[in-house]
């Protein structure tokens, strides 16, 4: 792609809390550099993050251009010259909609890792390792190579896990009776009671069609769980939708044709409903100084939390069937790659503490990706795809995890930031993980050879993503999570940390997580110091009982331990020590990145599009809604006067 030269010094400024600066367009980013002050604050936006660009009516100050991003950042640029504005607009439209995979950032992104490190990154999580951990293959489940070369189902991986009693004949037969040939395959296996979660697409049952092999397939799934005499078949669609599908020769399982199944509808709406729901919710977030009623009404009207609850309810139902009843479950929707993926992931998360660790969460992604589809690419349309196929399936799953974290604060090894950064990178196209829809496509594109893995990046920085309240031996960490079900509407809350992520003023000014992480870090240092001190004390005592000559020798050694003599003097009071660390907690994560921001221009390092960074530079940006933003300053912002002008606008509007 040709590099587009920066337009000549466009004076742009962001709406309301405006800043004058220069806009640059590069092959990968929109960069806005502020003229003001020595800091020359920068806002970097990846083209792949741009979800819409809107040219607004020209005003006296210039032509406004509104850019909405997939990570929920919104910025408005006001460009003095109409012509420049139009050029920027045209360029951005083109840049935000790559037509070839090769144009995506991940193919040019280079975090300066060598080949070996890159390969290691991709090997961090793996499909077969994960199934091994679950305890398969075993007496009941085996790997089938029926899909080698993707000849049975091109959206499945080559390795699929199926019941031992399901022969190739049964699998192929069943696949012919399923939408897109997505036959039932193992998603989660519970070692303790042999119950499993399988997934597929809808059967091509129409009004009366049957398929012997498909019936045998379901029978085989039941037999793989010897303790149970039936399986649940969960159709995650609303009943009406499923019935409508029958007219098209698709539909759902007839309980009469399949022996020993219990059929169940769970009404999760389709991707189109979800897309418009998110749209409506984001519109609420965009409102300028909404009243409480505007906000709540809009939130309700969007239906977003209702959908989240529906997904959670489905996950809870499946987890309960597996953990408490010991019954295997087959889950499908239409194609079995949106709702099915969400619901199976939520159920696994509830069932297995491993998925609630950082490593396990990455693995669960792998599974949901491989065993069904890669959830994302198709839906997230980074390539110029059909906008009607874009849907917030993955956002909803990430939100479900957050909702669970709110209810079980000690159960997850990772924190909110982890989820936010994953969400960011799903759309950033900086890493290869979320590219393509199928394993087949991924292999064809040689994703692993040509791009880097996000998991390696997150793993490297895992200290930032730890939940300080997580303890491996904590009771909440163990076993199945059982969220409260009735009545629980109020347990689902608006996730301000995600959807108004860039409105820093709206969030708690002090982060408990960061505070506790700093305390824990300090605790660790103290533990080390304690050990050293105890050793020294013991040595010193020993020496004192010996003669003086040796004594002085010993002291020399002690200084080698890294504690200078002055460090031991009483002058180093406890207050001093606390003060050193004190600055930590009040330091917000974004402030941390500020120090790094100077690096960005010179070096295309990893940080350059880290969510935090863009979050940080955004403080001055976009739709900072002054009238509902409180005065800055206070707790953790160092300069109390920084927001003075805006303050007056805040409460004095009579």
């Amino acid at each position, binding site marked *: 792609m040709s590099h587009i030269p920066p337009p000549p010094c466009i004076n742009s400024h962001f709406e309301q809390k405006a800043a004058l600066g220069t806009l640059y367009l590069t092959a990968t980013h929109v960069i806005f550099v502020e003229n003001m002050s020595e800091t020359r604050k920068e806002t970097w936006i990846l083209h792949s993050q741009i979800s819409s660009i809107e040219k607004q009516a020209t005003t006296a100050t210039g032509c406004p251009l509104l850019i909405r991003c997939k990570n929920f950042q919104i910025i408005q640029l006001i460009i003095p010259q109409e012509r420049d504005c139009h050029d920027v607009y045209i360029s951005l439209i083109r840049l935000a909609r790559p037509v070839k995979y090769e144009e995506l950032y991940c193919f040019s992104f280079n975090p300066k890792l060598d080949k070996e490190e890159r390969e290691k990154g991709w090997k961090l999580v793996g499909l077969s390792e994960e199934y091994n951990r679950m305890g398969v293959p075993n007496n009941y489940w085996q790997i089938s190579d029926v899909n080698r070369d993707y000849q049975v189902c091109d959206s499945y991986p080559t390795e699929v896990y199926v019941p031992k009693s399901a022969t190739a004949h049964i699998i192929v037969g069943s696949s012919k009776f399923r939408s897109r040939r997505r036959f039932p395959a193992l998603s989660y296996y519970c070692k303790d009671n042999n119950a499993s979660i399988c997934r597929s697409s809808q059967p091509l049952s129409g009004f009366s069609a049957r398929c012997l092999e498909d019936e045998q397939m379901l029978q085989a799934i039941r037999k793989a769980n010897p303790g149970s005499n039936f399986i649940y078949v969960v159709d995650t669609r609303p009943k009406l939708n499923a019935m409508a599908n029958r007219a098209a020769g698709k539909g759902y399982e007839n309980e009469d044709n399949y022996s020993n199944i219990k059929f169940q509808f769970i009404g999760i709406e389709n991707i189109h409903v979800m897309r418009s729901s998110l749209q409506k919710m984001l519109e609420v977030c965009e409102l300028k*100084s909404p*009243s*409480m*009623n*505007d*906000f*709540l009404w809009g939130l*309700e009207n969007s239906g977003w*939390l*209702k959908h989240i609850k529906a997904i959670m309810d489905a996950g809870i139902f499946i987890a309960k069937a597996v953990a408490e009843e010991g019954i295997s479950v087959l889950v499908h929707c239409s194609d079995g790659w949106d709702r099915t993926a969400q619901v199976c992931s939520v159920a696994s998360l509830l069932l297995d503490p491993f998925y609630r660790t950082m490593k396990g969460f990455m693995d669960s992604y792998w599974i949901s990706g491989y065993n069904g589809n890669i959830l994302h690419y198709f839906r997230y349309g980074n390539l110029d795809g059909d906008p009607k196929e874009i849907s917030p399936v993955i956002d909803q799953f990430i939100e479900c995890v957050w909702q669970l974290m709110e209810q079980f*604060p*000690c159960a997850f090894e990772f924190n909110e930031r982890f989820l936010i950064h994953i969400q960011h990178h799903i759309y950033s196209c900086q890493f290869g993980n979320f590219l393509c829809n199928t394993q087949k496509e991924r292999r064809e594109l040689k994703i692993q050879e040509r791009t880097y893995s996000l998991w390696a990046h997150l793993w490297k920085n895992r200290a930032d993503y730890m939940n300080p*309240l997580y303890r491996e031996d*904590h009771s*909440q960490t163990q076993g199945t999570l059982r969220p409260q079900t*009735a*009545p629980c509407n*109020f*347990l689902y809350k*608006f996730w301000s940390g995600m959807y108004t992520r860039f409105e820093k003023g*709206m*969030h*708690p*000014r002090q982060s*408990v997580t960061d*505070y*506790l992480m700093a*305390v*824990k870090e300090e*605790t660790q240092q*103290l533990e080390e*110091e*304690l050990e050293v*001190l105890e050793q*020294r*004390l013991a040595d*010193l*005592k020993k020496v*004192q009982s010996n003669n003086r000559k040796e004594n002085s020798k010993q*002291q020399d050694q002690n200084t080698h331990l890294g504690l200078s*003599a002055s460090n*031991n*003097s*009483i002058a*180093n009071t406890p207050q001093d020590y*606390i003060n050193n660390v004190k600055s930590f*907690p*009040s330091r917000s994560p974004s402030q941390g990145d500020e120090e790094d921001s100077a690096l960005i221009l010179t070096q295309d390092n990893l940080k350059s599009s880290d969510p935090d960074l863009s979050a940080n530079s955004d403080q001055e940006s976009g739709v900072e809604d002054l009238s509902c933003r*409180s*005065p*800055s*300053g*206070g*707790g953790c912002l160092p300069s109390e006067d920084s927001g003075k002008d805006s*303050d*007056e606008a*805040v*409460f*004095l509007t*009579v």
Partner: protein
Amino acid sequence: MEFAELIKTPRADNVVLHRPFYPAVEGTLCLTGHHLILSSRRQDNAEELWLLHSNIDAIEKRFVGSLGTIIIKCKDLRIIQLDIPGMEECLNIASSIEALSTLDSVTLMYPFFYRPMFEVVEDGWHSFLPEREFELLSSVTNEWRLSYVNKEFSVCPSYPPAVTVPKSIDDEALRRVATFRHGGRFPVLSYYHKKNGMVMMRSSQPLTGTNGRRCKEDSALINATLRAGKRGYIIDTRSLNVAQQARAKGGGFEQEVQYPQWRRIHKSVERYNILQESLIKLVEACNDQSHNMDRWLSKLEASNWLTHIKEILTAACLAAQCIDREGASVLVHGTEGTDSTLQITSLAQIILDPRCRTIRGFEALVEREWLQAGHPFQQRCAQSAYSNSRQKCESPVFFLFLDCVWQILRQFPCSFEFNEHFLIMLFEHAYASQFGTFLFNNESERSKLKLPQKTMSLWSWVNRPQELSKFKNPLFEANSLVIWPSVAPQSLQLWEGVFLRWNRSSKFLDEAYEEMNNIIEYNKELQAKVNALRRQLAELETDDGMQESS
């Protein structure tokens, strides 16, 4: 009157207690003059429920055959159910509870009978006297004096005997101003901002009436707080419309002509029955058993509770902003100056003054700005969210204040010495308590009935180390800055700790809190150990050095 007359059936066996999230408990129910007690007889897991009759907001009876059920709805929003065998017994118990929970005379309330089982280290009745507060003030300024003009409660029945006023204004002038202000509530000092010497005063509305009555002393009083050439702000907690209508009833507001140095801002905050209805609707929504997500949000919206929170916080931020950022003095009032006025002045202090974010400082604030300032607790807190009898005086004004504090606490989790439990405790005691602190409507009534002599102060109980430890926020790091909360709808949340307290299991959240405590405790422990070792080492080394040099 003897309580025995009201207790028709003092005891019933085989009563089953149902509470959400707890297994049913079977036991014996006893009624005493002030308590409903249920104790299970099972030795291994003896459980007792003690419920103050004054905590009971409403009861309902139901019968299935001879099994009676009483549903008790408490002022702390809890709902419990008692299954009582025997129709007559059940009816008797229900009517006894009803009678005992609606006693007319305050002097029959439990605080007058309560004998503490703990040793009183510090008598809370004397912990926060106006004289003490004034001492603190005089260490930073000498422009104010403590006036005893209201010693006999004759000038203003809802003010305490001692109030802080500008030094240049004598008692005679105060008496005159009192006649010009609703209920005699002349402007008094509420808060002195050390950083810039600006002040916040509070009062009631001026009685200008329709013909624009004026009072020279009144303007002199409030002008005395202005620096030369400076302007001040009057924050009227009513809309301009309401304020104008008040003139017809003899009330009014400060006209520009008569108060040229003051800029008036109307910041409407709801009051009385509107707030009470809001509370009733909100609690109804929280107790709704349906599984419909939509209904929950629309009910939350329809209750308007969070709207009131937003309004109150915004007005408080405005007052704080005028003082801290504009460098101007502020006078806050509404109509009576006993409700919304106090919400604003007390919240503004939480925002501005780090002291108010400590436990003792917050207690002092509640004493000063609510109890001594004459917020009519008895009237406002007589009934809570389940009351059927809608009297005009009940209103969750103080409750809203606590909710607002919680909102700020949530946004600044490390800046408060106390935790959420402290606020919940205050909420409970404001509505039903064994202590005398929140009884009656003002200092005059309290002193007439010799409350300090006859009852125990809540502070005497709270301020003992073993109680305080429950209310301490482990995350607290003194923060001397002004803390500006966000009032955006996205930043305000339902106070789950109170409203969902009985409708959800808090097990996992409690565990998280405990874990947080452990992390911090362990850190402190290590710090102490390391420091001790360092000292020890240092001593040994100096010993050593001395030996060597000798």
